């Protein structure tokens, strides 16, 4: 069997491609013993979750420009709960739920708004969340009385996931356990996004995105599905944030930064907006490029380059890397025009 036949037989099917990726993900920690590289991969998983969450909202035609708000709400809410004695699993879940509730609230404001208005409101919301958390003396005082210092470093328990999620040995949270935690969380998020997009809800999202008036005429309840999109997407973002907080061992209002709102956008666009695989490929590529630039000692330059990448992509590659990947895959497997649902 030649390579071409092999690829043709197995790799074209998106399911076997995903299965292969999952297998690689499962055995990767056995090969990687370097802490730094492990961290980059865990961060990639985190960004894949975050981008997938953003992509799902964009799939319903609502492009949030302030998704960091939900990331931050998830992180802060879960951390505050866990530090106050909630079990990690409950804390993470509640953090994600808190993000989802705020998402519902913002969705209610945004439901009548289209592209620009929606962008303005979400963008502003994240900035204002950051400003409120950052500057509000009331909030900081509450934090200080709870944790003894600005930010949340002091009392963060590195073992907060010890055993409590049921997949780890008690009280030991090693590098690999965090790896698997993020890995399964990521697989779950992607699977959820896949199921939503392929379900009736997903069809409603696509219909609303393509033409709201027509979708409404066909009997799609616009308000309901827009809110559903907001709630699912913000739940995912809050979940990612809730997991990120203990892994990072530290959270502060920086998590609401514009940069965190833009990362999922740049990643999803790089991969391919509106596809399941887009956020995965995009997050992988952009995060590796980003970390590589960090290793090369760039700080301001890499932000500049990120902006250039986004502008050049919008101008010359608006569909992202996915169509190119498909073309390569089809070429390798000898299929000329098959729409692989990767």
């Amino acid at each position, binding site marked *: 069997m030649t390579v071409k036949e092999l690829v043709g037989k197995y790799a074209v099917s998106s399911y076997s491609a995903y299965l292969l990726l999952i297998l690689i993900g499962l055995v990767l920690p056995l090969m990687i013993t370097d802490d730094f590289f492990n961290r980059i991969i865990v961060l990639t998983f985190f960004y894949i979750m975050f981008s997938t969450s953003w992509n799902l909202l964009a799939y319903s035609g609502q*492009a949030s420009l302030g998704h960091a708000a939900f990331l931050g709400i998830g992180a802060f809410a879960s951390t505050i709960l866990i530090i106050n004695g909630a079990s990690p699993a409950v804390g993470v879940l509640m953090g994600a739920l808190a993000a989802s509730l705020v998402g519902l609230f913002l969705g209610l404001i945004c439901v009548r708004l289209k592209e620009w208005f929606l962008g303005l409101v979400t963008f502003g919301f994240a900035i204002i969340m950051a400003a409120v958390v950052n500057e509000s003396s009331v909030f900081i005082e509450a934090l200080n009385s709870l944790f003894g210092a600005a930010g949340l470093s002091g009392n963060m328990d590195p073992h907060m996931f010890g055993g409590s999620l049921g997949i780890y040995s008690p009280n030991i949270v090693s590098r690999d356990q965090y790896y698997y935690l993020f890995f399964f969380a990521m697989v779950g998020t992607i699977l959820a996004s896949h199921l939503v997009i392929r379900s009736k809800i997903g069809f409603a999202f696509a219909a609303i995105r393509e033409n709201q008036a027509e979708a409404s005429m066909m009997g799609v309840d616009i308000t309901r599905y827009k809110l559903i999109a907001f709630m699912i997407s913000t739940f995912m973002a809050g979940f990612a944030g809730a997991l990120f907080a203990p892994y990072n061992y530290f959270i502060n209002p920086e998590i609401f930064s514009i940069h965190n709102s833009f990362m999922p956008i740049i990643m999803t666009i790089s991969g391919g907006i509106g596809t399941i695989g887009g956020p995965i490929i995009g997050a992988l590529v952009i995060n590796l490029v980003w970390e590589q630039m960090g290793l090369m000692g760039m700080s301001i330059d890499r932000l500049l380059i990120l902006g250039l990448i986004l502008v050049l992509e919008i101008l010359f590659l608006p569909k992202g890397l996915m169509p190119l990947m498909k073309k390569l895959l089809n070429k390798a497997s000898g299929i000329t025009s098959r729409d692989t649902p990767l």
Partner: protein
Amino acid sequence: MAEITTLIQIFIWGLTAGCIYVLMAVGLNMIFGVMKVVNFAHGEIMMLGAFTSFWVYYYTGLNPYFILFISMILVGVFGVIIERYGFRKVLGTGKLNEIFLSLGLIYILQNAAVKLWTDDIRKINSPFSSATLDIGILNITYDRLIAIAFTALILICLYLFLTRTDVGRALRATSQNHEAAMLMGVNVNHMYMLSFGIGAALAAAAGTVAGILSPFNPYMGTLPGIMAFVVIIIGGLGSIPGAIIAGLMLGLVQNFTIFYFGGAWKEAVAFALLIIVLIIRPTGLFGEEH
């Protein structure tokens, strides 16, 4: 109850803050009216305006209020370039692409400015920086009064340009109806460039005024940029009178909020106003359906 002089003082501060929002929001509305594009990088163009003024001042030592006009012209030309080689390319390919392009511009402009000029705090020194108008125990710096006067002057010039000249009428015609304007022989592409140029020039004026009134660094534009968006939503997208009224209102509300509740609530109150307006009147105070 606060002293009446304190209240007047806060009123003047609110008015000057409002003037900066008005200049930004009117520019954003000009661009939106003609091109149906909201430039998210408007705050960064404002920052470029401040830096242009700073460097012209640094090398020539001219009066900053004269430099303001030089800065408007230079940054206006820069705005035309952004329109021609950026937004023009993605017009009509979907609203999201236009949004993402302006996000990319934020990254590029902000970080290029940090790279070129570092993030040190700078200030444009006005010759009137220590001069105050004293009425009783009330004292107001001349710079704030000049800022208000200049904003009024610029808005009057813009009004005259839009209503009394052929180009201005063509611009308004394009804003009302692209196709009809095109049929009447208006070069719509030129109108796009012009509107973006005017918008950028107004942002440069806002940046210069802000740079004279308070110190700045390359991150100065982010919050005024957001507030300008809030202003155009409250005032109504595309409505210039709406932008003026909402801009002054937001400046006043924010400054009184700072006085009564503290600086932390400045942004929160703006967002609260925005939400209330969106719930009660989603098209804004003076907006039409889009």
